[in-house]
C-alpha cells in the first residue's frame, strides 16, 4: 500500500465518500467498520493536506508540440 503514489484529491475524496456510504450500512461487521473508519480518517487527513498544500500547476503547450500533435 505504501508503495503506491499519493492519490489525487479527487480519488481520495471519492474513496472517502464511498467509505461513508459503507459505514452507514449497519449490516457491516464491527471489525470491518473500524477498519473503514480508520481508512476514512486517513483519507480525510490526506484530503485536507492536499487541499492545504495545493498550488496551481500551469504548463504551456509549446508551439512545436502543437504542430506535432496536428501532424499526428
Amino acid at each position, binding site marked *: 500500500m505504501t508503495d503506491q503514489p499519493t492519490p489525487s484529491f479527487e480519488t481520495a475524496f471519492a474513496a472517502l465518500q464511498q467509505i461513508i456510504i459503507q459505514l452507514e450500512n449497519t449490516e457491516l461487521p*464491527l471489525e470491518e*467498520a473500524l477498519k473503514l473508519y480508520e481508512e476514512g480518517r486517513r483519507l480525510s487527513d490526506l*484530503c485536507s493536506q492536499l487541499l492545504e498544500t495545493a498550488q496551481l500547476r500551469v504548463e504551456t503547450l509549446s508551439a512545436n508540440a502543437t504542430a506535432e*500533435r496536428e501532424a499526428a
Partner: protein
Amino acid sequence: MLEFDFPPLQPMIFSVTSLSNYLREVLETDEILKDVWVRGEISNFSQPRSGHLYFTLKDNEAQLRCVMWKSQTFRLRFDPKDGQMVEAHGAMSFYPAGGQVQLYIDAMQPVGEGQLYQEFLRLKARLEAEGLFAAELKRPLPELPRHIGVVTSPSGAALQDILNTLRRRLPLARVTLAPTPVQGAEAPAGIVSALKSLNSLPDLDLIILARGGGSIEDLWSFNDEAVAYAIRASRVPVISGVGHETDFTIADFAADLRAPTPTAAAELATPITSADLAAELLSINQNLSASLKNKLTILRQQLLLAENRLQRHSPAQRVRTFLQFQDETRERLERAMSHYLAQHQLKLQNQIDRLESVSPMAVLRRGFAIVSDAQSQQLISRRKQTHPNQPIQIQLSDGKIAATISGDTP
C-alpha cells in the same frame, strides 16, 4: 421656406433670437434631420473636462459641427480620434448662442463596423440554422475539473485574470495553456489549432477560450465559423469568456457556456472551490465519526439484547430454578415426614397408654401388691399356699420388700 403673405414693402423683421429659434424649430421637426446617419472623417476632436465630445465631421467638400453629450458616450465601443472615418447617428439642430447648425450625436461607430455587424448576423443565422448553437448540444460542465485547458494569448491580461481566479478558487487544478494569437489574421487558425491540441490531452476536463476586451474588430477572430466548428468538435466542454459583458461573439454562441469575461469564465469553470471542499471535508469527518458512533451504539444495544436472551437460557439459571424447586420439594418432604411422625407418635402414645393400663405395674400403683414365695419365687394368690413363718416377697409399685407370715394359716 419662409413665405410671406404681405407686400415686400413692409418686410417682417425678426430678432436674431426669434429667427434662430425658428430655425431650430424647423430643423428639429424635420422628419429626415431628426433621425439621421452621416458618414465622415473626424477632425478638430476635443473632449473638455465636461466629458462632452466636440468635433467636426468632414468629407472633401463639406464639414459639419458635431456634439456628443457625455451621457451618450458610454455607448461608444471605440476611442474617437482625428482622422478616423465614422458613421454617426443623431439629430440636427441649431445652436443659437454659437450660431451653428450642429449634429447632436447619440451613436457612433467606426466605418465598416456596420458591415461587420451585418456579416456577424448572417454567420450567426447560418450556424444557428445548421443547429450548431442548439441547447441540446451544450455539454454539462464538470463540477470539479482537475485539468483545465486555456486557449488565449500568453501575453494577455485575460490569462492573468484566469490564472489568478483559478489560483484563488481551486489551486488543486492543473492548467495547460495552449497559446495562440487572439486577434489578427492568424488568430482563427491559431485558436482552432489550440483547441485541437488541448483535445489530444487525455485527462483534460474543460477548456476556457478567452480574450480580454477590445473593439469589435479586435474580437473578430471569435466570429469565425472555423472557430465555432472547432468548439463544437471539442471532446471536452468549452467555456467562452470573450471581451466584456456586452460583447457577444459566434464563439460565445457555439460554446457550452458563455461567460461575460475571462475572470467569470474561470469562476464558472470552478463551481466548487477549495473552500467548499474544505467545508465538505469537515462535514464528512463529522459524518464519519457519527457513523461509527451510531454503529457502535447499535451494536451495543444488540449486544445487550443478546446478553439478556443468553441469560434467560443459561445453565446457571436452570440450576438456580432447579435448586429452588429442590428446596421446595425438600421442604414438602420434611413437612410430610414430620406430619407422618407426629401422627405415628400419637398412635404410639395411645398404644403405650393402652399397654400401660393393662400392665400389673399399674395395678400396683393403685395400691395392690404382688406376693411371692421368697425361695421359690412362686406367686402366692391363695391362702393354702402359705404357712406360718414363711418368708415372702412383696412387690410394691416402687420396689420389693421382704416379709414373714406371722398370722394364722389354713
